[in-house]
């Protein structure tokens, strides 16, 4: 059969079919192979004001979709961190010189300023792999592994989750676990807890590496209430044990009356100008949290509201309220305002400084993240479909945190200084999601 004759078959067939089925003109076929790949990429910038932490994060989540709802997910994240982070020492009316965490150099903080560890610089590479598949008609299993590497930190994790649908798939109950083992290997070795900062080159207060183990268990239920409303509740328990200190964090040793840091004479090779101790946290921490979420749909608008209560045996209690509203603009664009409120109480061993001459506490940390603070995030996301039906979005958010020191901990001259400055940060993210 000649080429032209073969080519005309579909045309002749269309005419013949039209005669067979009557005059009604059928709709034109629109069939497309379902994409096998779903790739979500994003670039995130997080920047704290006053030259504190700046972070760039490049992320790709690659999902390979197989038939019968089986999915393999691979994630890659590359983070670059620079800037300065509060060391935990209090500001003074005079300059102070502090040995850095690795013990091989010193930095000087001008009078009246909060001591920041300027050497905060790191790159992190993280990978995750996950396999999800149905089991029988109504259940699903999910297993995953993760690993990440920083200059001084190594993480390995495994996770699993099982979920089962009930009630015509309107109810889903799930149980999951995750275990992780992390190794902290700070330059110069992890410092001995509550030991003094020493002169440059004296590493006698540094040990080798230290590990921690993490176990998480999550139990969840989600329920379709109506065509418009889906609610979800999760309970989770998490335990960390092992080396939970931050090797970069220190405390100032202060005079019981003036509240000023005790002076110290540095050795000939240089060293700290005042007395500082490395922090010490308990080597075990158990957290419990309850998370509830409701999603309400109305004509393409989606209200997503959630609340989380977290409590741990370090006596940190926190409350988080998160609100998002997705508001369609035309057919293929949307705006999504976001508000988040957070508040936490301080850890029982949080203290601004250590009093010279008083009995040394068993645990002590002045890490501002373990303090009493409130935070608010306000942001806006704009998303749109590209001409080839992929998704792009930009998100800009402002973060503001303000903390307070428990009244009884402020001694003498400390009252006149800002020991816990507010933190402001900006978050900007660009995302591109495409399928093929």
């Amino acid at each position, binding site marked *: *059969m000649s080429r032209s004759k*073969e080519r005309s078959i579909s045309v*002749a067939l269309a005419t013949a*079919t039209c*005669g*067979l089925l009557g005059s009604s003109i*059928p709709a034109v076929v*629109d069939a497309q*192979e379902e994409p096998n790949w779903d790739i979500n990429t994003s670039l995130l910038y997080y920047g704290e004001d006053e030259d504190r932490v700046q972070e760039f994060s490049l992320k790709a989540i690659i999902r390979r979709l197989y*038939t019968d709802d089986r999915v393999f997910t691979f994630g890659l994240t590359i983070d670059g961190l620079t800037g300065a982070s509060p060391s935990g020492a209090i500001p003074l009316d005079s300059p102070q010189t502090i040995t850095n965490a690795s013990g091989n150099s010193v930095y000087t903080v001008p009078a009246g300023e909060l001591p920041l560890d300027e050497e905060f610089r790191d790159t992190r590479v993280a990978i995750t792999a996950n396999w999800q598949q149905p089991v029988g008609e109504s259940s699903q299993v999910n297993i995953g592994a993760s690993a990440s590497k920083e200059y001084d930190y190594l993480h390995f994790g495994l996770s699993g989750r099982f979920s089962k649908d009930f009630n015509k798939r309107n109810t889903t109950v799930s149980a999951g676990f995750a275990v992780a083992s992390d190794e902290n290997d700070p330059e110069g070795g992890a410092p001995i807890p509550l030991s003094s900062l020493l002169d440059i080159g004296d590493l006698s207060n540094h040990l080798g590496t230290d590990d921690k183990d993490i176990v998480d268990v999550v139990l969840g239920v989600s329920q379709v209430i109506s065509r418009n409303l889906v609610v979800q509740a999760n309970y989770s328990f998490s335990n960390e044990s092992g080396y939970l200190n931050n090797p970069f964090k220190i405390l100032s040793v202060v005079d019981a009356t003036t509240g000023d840091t005790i002076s110290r004479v540095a050795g000939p090779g240089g060293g700290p100008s005042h007395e500082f101790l490395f922090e010490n946290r308990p080597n075990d921490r158990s957290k419990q949290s309850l998370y509830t979420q409701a999603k309400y749909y109305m004509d393409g608008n989606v209200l997503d509201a959630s609340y989380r209560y977290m409590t741990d045996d370090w006596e940190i209690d926190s409350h988080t309220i998160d609100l998002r509203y997705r508001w369609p603009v035309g057919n293929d664009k949307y705006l999504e305002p976001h508000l988040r409120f957070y508040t936490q109480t301080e850890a029982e061993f949080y203290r601004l400084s250590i009093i010279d001459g008083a009995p040394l506490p068993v645990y002590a940390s002045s890490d501002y993240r373990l303090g009493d603070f409130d935070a608010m995030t306000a942001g806006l996301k704009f998303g749109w479909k590209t001409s080839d039906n992929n998704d792009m979005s930009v998100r800009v958010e402002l973060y503001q945190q303000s903390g307070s020191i428990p009244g009884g901990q402020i001694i003498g001259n400390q009252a006149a200084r800002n020991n816990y400055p507010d933190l402001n940060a900006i978050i900007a993210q660009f995302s591109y999601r495409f399928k093929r």
Partner: protein
Amino acid sequence: MGSPCELLCELESSRDAEMMTAIVAAEAWRIEEKLSRYIDGNIIHQINSANGKPVEVDSETAQLLDFAETLFSLSEGAFDITSGVLRGAWTFDGSDNIPARPEVEALLIHVGWDKGNWQSPVLTLPGNMEIDLGGIGKEYAVDRAVNILRADSDKPFLVNFGGDLAVTGPPQARKAWTVGIEAVEQGEATQLIELRQGALATSGDARRFLKRDGVRYGHVIDPRTGWPVEEAASSITVAADTCTQAGMLSTLAMLKGASAESFLDKQSEQYWCHR
């Protein structure tokens, strides 16, 4: 239809769903009653037992015979509704039971649409010849059901008669109907297709074959030789405006054997071919 039939719909009330299902089922049974070669007394039975006498057919059957004649000529005899008698020689049960040549030759005398005389609405076939509209009927029934649904409702439906299917439009809750093409050997879908409009039909059944001396004989018989088409694909799925077009293209491609893909490449429709 000799296979599971289903109607998928997106409706507000289950009463509407039941009503539409009843309408579609009634149409499917009507076509089956009329065109099945296994039912005594229907028009096919009358034609197949006419023993050389002319039979006047109703207008619907006449349209189907016109269509069959067009396909016979388009395929140069490869698509032939009189080829059913060859089933007497071939049973594709996975065995090595290859018929002897004389046995096939004897049956081949009774095959050939051009040996009969079709002057609509009168068909005259030589004695011992039979017709079988099974190769058209299922796809035709799907398209008839879709036309009825379109006339009665503007809601989205998917009509699936044994894997040959068509939709009346995309579902509202999701952007498309997701249809899996099964690779017969594995029993699981190998490719998912998002169907918003139109139809999909599949030819082929890799489980039906014969094998002898290392040669595999697939179940598609070329009515011009009486022997299985060499190197036929194990399954071919075609997307087209109507299920009838999709079904006929996948059948014609199957009859092309090794050159199924090059045949389909020249048509303007999408296809998925498994070998």
